């Protein structure tokens, strides 16, 4: 076995691209393992954990190449795969000499000027995102700030500067936006229509768009504003601008505001502001005692005179092996097909979408009481750093704390997949509740990978003598490239039940946990 480690200076690549590069290097002939990453603290830990010794003094701006191969030839194959992978990355922004193209713009401001852009999208690491966002604002261009880990002080400065320039800051930590039919970041492919959405939540906005899509209602724009916009500190700065813009927009007939649990005084303030806009504004703002997103969308549809559909769901296909053992089961009865919860008593919700996790906790805590989380509903419910507790647990893998130095779990699902496997082996886990979000930006075909993990966890549970029911909340629109139905079929084949409504998925999980049906519906 031969280890190769080198540090390259003067080259920066984003973490998503390097993940793909690492995969290509790892698949070269004779390579056993490979990690190609910028030398952030987290990445150095990973490389150290693989048994490589990284020299001291390596800067986060430097590229670390770690290759483990069967022999020298394997290393050479890996390096050659690396060179071609990096060359492919560079080809988009190639710098030709002579009379060829000018060098690619190096700052967002230059890119805006070169392309005469009227909208900017920033997804650089959070500590640098404020710089780029100001560059866009200073040039009079609205900016979607996908980056997270931006301080609330910077957020307020950016939004004040934007308001002064009459441009919008969508973010930070804004996963979703649809502007004039163009999907930005993680966004679902929905029909254009009369509903304007203001989303202080990425996956919350996506969930609402998916439900509207299922109801046959289109969207004019979905303006993300960042998950903290309705907090007391930010005070709804972007929401106010977005409301005014949608009110003046001829394509928008009614407005729906989607938010994580807001500060109540900010919400009250915005409700007062919205009342004077001359267009109906509805609120899907999560919180204790407030309707969940599905209920809010249903209320919106009714108020707008539209029919409320039955939200799509897909029942699990029973495992043949399991059927053989337990020949008396009814294949189409959800509680029967997944069996009793056995000794596992606890709900384990593993989410990529923060708002979906929030909503699940709000729905479930009525039945279960306090739920431990890294984004807890109350401070005393916070999980320790290891994110483990012998209790009901809901984890948001997309939270700032878990994405520092790594890509969002909708792009890099490693951490969540590991946790799914761990839950399969945990006898306390009574039901597994997962989300899966489709659309632009998400994994091109996330179904099989998640289905494998579900199958693995269920098999591990079965070896441990228990049945592990799995419920997936699948947020997607009919037009999404991954296909809602196809993805649902892949997941049900692995034994999961699948719901388009996150609230319904949560209730289904609760019913499986206690063996009773809390949804009150029969299918």
């Amino acid at each position, binding site marked *: 076995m031969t280890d190769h480690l080198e540090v390259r200076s003067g080259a920066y690549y*984003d*973490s*998503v*691209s390097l993940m793909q590069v690492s995969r290509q290097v790892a698949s070269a002939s004779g390579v056993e393992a490979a990690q190609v990453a910028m030398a952030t603290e987290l990445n150095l830990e990973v490389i150290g954990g693989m048994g490589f010794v990284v020299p001291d003094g390596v800067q986060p701006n430097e590229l670390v190449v770690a290759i483990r191969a069967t022999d020298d030839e394997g290393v050479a194959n890996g390096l050659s795969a690396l060179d071609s992978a990096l060359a492919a990355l560079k080809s*988009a*922004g190639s*710098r030709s*000499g*002579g009379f060829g193209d*000018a*060098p*690619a*713009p*190096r*700052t*967002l401001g*230059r*890119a*805006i000027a*070169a*392309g*005469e*852009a*009227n*909208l*900017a*999208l*920033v*997804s*650089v*690491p959070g*500590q*640098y995102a*404020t*710089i780029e966002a*100001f560059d*866009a604002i*200073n040039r009079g*261009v*609205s900016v979607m700030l*996908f980056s997270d880990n931006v301080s609330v002080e910077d957020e307020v*400065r*950016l939004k004040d*500067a934007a308001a002064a320039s*009459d*441009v*919008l800051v969508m973010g930070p930590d804004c996963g979703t936006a649809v502007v*004039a039919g*163009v*999907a930005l970041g993680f966004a679902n492919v929905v029909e254009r229509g009369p509903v304007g959405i203001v989303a202080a939540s990425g996956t919350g906005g996506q969930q609402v768009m998916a439900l509207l899509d299922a109801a046959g209602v289109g969207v*004019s724009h979905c303006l993300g504003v960042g998950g903290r916009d309705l907090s007391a500190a930010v005070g709804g700065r972007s929401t106010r*601008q977005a409301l*005014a*813009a949608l009110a*003046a*927009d*001829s*394509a928008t007939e009614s407005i729906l505001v989607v938010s994580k649990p807001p500060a109540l005084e900010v919400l009250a303030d915005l409700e007062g502001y919205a009342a004077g806009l001359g267009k109906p504004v509805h609120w899907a703002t999560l919180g204790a005692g407030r309707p969940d997103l599905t209920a809010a969308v249903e209320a919106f549809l009714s108020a707008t005179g539209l029919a409320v559909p039955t939200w799509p769901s897909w029942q699990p296909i029973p495992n043949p092996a399991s059927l053989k053992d337990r020949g008396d089961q009814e294949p189409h009865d959800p509680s029967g097909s997944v069996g009793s919860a056995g000794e596992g008593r606890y709900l384990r919700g593993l989410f990529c979408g923060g708002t979906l996790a929030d909503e699940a906790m709000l729905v479930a805590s009525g039945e279960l009481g306090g739920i431990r989380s890294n984004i807890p509903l109350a401070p005393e419910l916070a999980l320790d750093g290891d994110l483990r507790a012998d209790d009901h647990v809901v984890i948001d893998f997309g939270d700032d704390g878990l994405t520092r130095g790594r*890509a969002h779990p909708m*792009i890099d699902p490693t951490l969540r997949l590991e946790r799914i496997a761990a839950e399969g082996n945990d006898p306390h886990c009574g039901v597994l509740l997962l989300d899966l979000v489709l659309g632009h930006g998400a994994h091109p075909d996330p179904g099989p990978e998640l289905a494998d993990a579900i199958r693995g966890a269920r098999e591990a549970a079965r070896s441990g003598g228990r049945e592990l029911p799995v419920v997936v909340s699948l947020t997607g629109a009919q037009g999404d490239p991954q296909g809602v139905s196809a993805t649902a079929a892949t997941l049900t084949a692995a034994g999961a039940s699948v719901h388009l409504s996150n609230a319904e998925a949560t209730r289904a999980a609760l019913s499986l946990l206690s063996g009773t049906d809390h949804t009150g519906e029969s299918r």
Partner: protein
Amino acid sequence: MTTPLRGLLGSDPVLATAGASMFADALRDQAVVVTETDWQPPLEGTAGQLASVMGDPRRTDANALALQRMTAAGADFVDVRPAREALGLERGTFLHAGPPIEWDRASGPLKGALIGAMLFEGMAETPEAAEVALARGDVQLEPCHHRDAVGPMAGVISPSMWVYELRDEVHDHTSWCSLNEGLGKVLRYGAYGPEVIERLHWMNSVLGPLLQQAIRAAGPIDVKSIIAQMLQMGDEGHNRNRAGSLMLLRELLPSLIVADGTSADIAEAVRFSGANEHFFLNLGMPACKLSTLAAEGIPGSTVVTTMARNGTDFGIRTAGTGAQWFTGPANTPEGLFLGSYGPDDANPDIGDSAITETAGIGGFAMAAAPAIVKFVGGDVPLALRATRTMYEITVGEHTAYQVPILEFRGTPTGIDVAAVARTGILPQINTGMAGRVAGTGQVGAGLVTPPAECFTQAIAALAANARA
């Protein structure tokens, strides 16, 4: 009523992105026009300061004003006079290139030039005696820039030396520069042998007074217009001044040849000036100084107003931070060497001539002067790439100085400290190389960049001054 958000919701989105390329790909899949940023993290440790500077509400307008003033500044050659008279330079004070420095830390070429000036001024009989007096602090050393003057290489100006005087009538500024001594063993490269001192005396007694008569009769001469023309004739105004020198001579000749002097002296003055390919440099530099002088003192501006080197330190100043210097150790240029000289003979970067790059010519206009690569090294694509890359760190384009091969695009002008820190792209400077040992003279020419710490210090100071 105006449409909110500048009409964003009613128009087709045209995107610019910075960050993960998958988002740009997803947009292209929707047939949206996307311009991607080739983004890299900023210089180490500057992120927080850059966030403050970029958020300073004064910055955009302040930088636009700096650029407007830099490009509007005039540069008329109006007079030639002794420094004593023109600059009010008192006996016992010598000016030098670059940021402030004391004798002990001075490099070989600067020491050599100071020794030469002592000999020339008659303040010492021998080089040894001059050195002792200088070490003792008999002479007050002061940067040329502190008096709105500039000097190439060592840039030493003593009170008796004659200087060119240029005026910016738009902003009512004056700038000065020493007369060019030609190439080879010359004071500005740290040589102080008898032939050097003898030439300086001749320049004082013959050349200076003749040029004075000529310019007073022919002037003012529009130097800015000569720079604009020379860039279209293959010069870049720092290390290649052939066309500029001929045009200057053409302007001066009619009055020079009828000046009050012996025909032998006039013939020698014409021969000397005509033989000197860098005759124009000492007018181009103060013209550039007038441009950057116009941008000084604009609160909130992150534009560089001075880049200068003394052979030990590289120093910059910015429009938003006044007279404060931000310095770091000068790099040693890389390039081509004269005769048998090699890299070990070269002194670190020296001279006020980087004022040309500060004002948007020199290395920034390299694409206009592809022939220069035969002098400084590299190839023609490098010359084109150098100019094109400088657009990434400048506020805008010069309105008068243009590059024909880039479709007459204005040269990149107004170096933005924030853009340098964000991109890590350092200003490209074309320069001559002085021998490191005092008295050697020129050993080559090449390319050099400032040390990054000049810019990290400047961004820290700008951040401290930034408004929220």
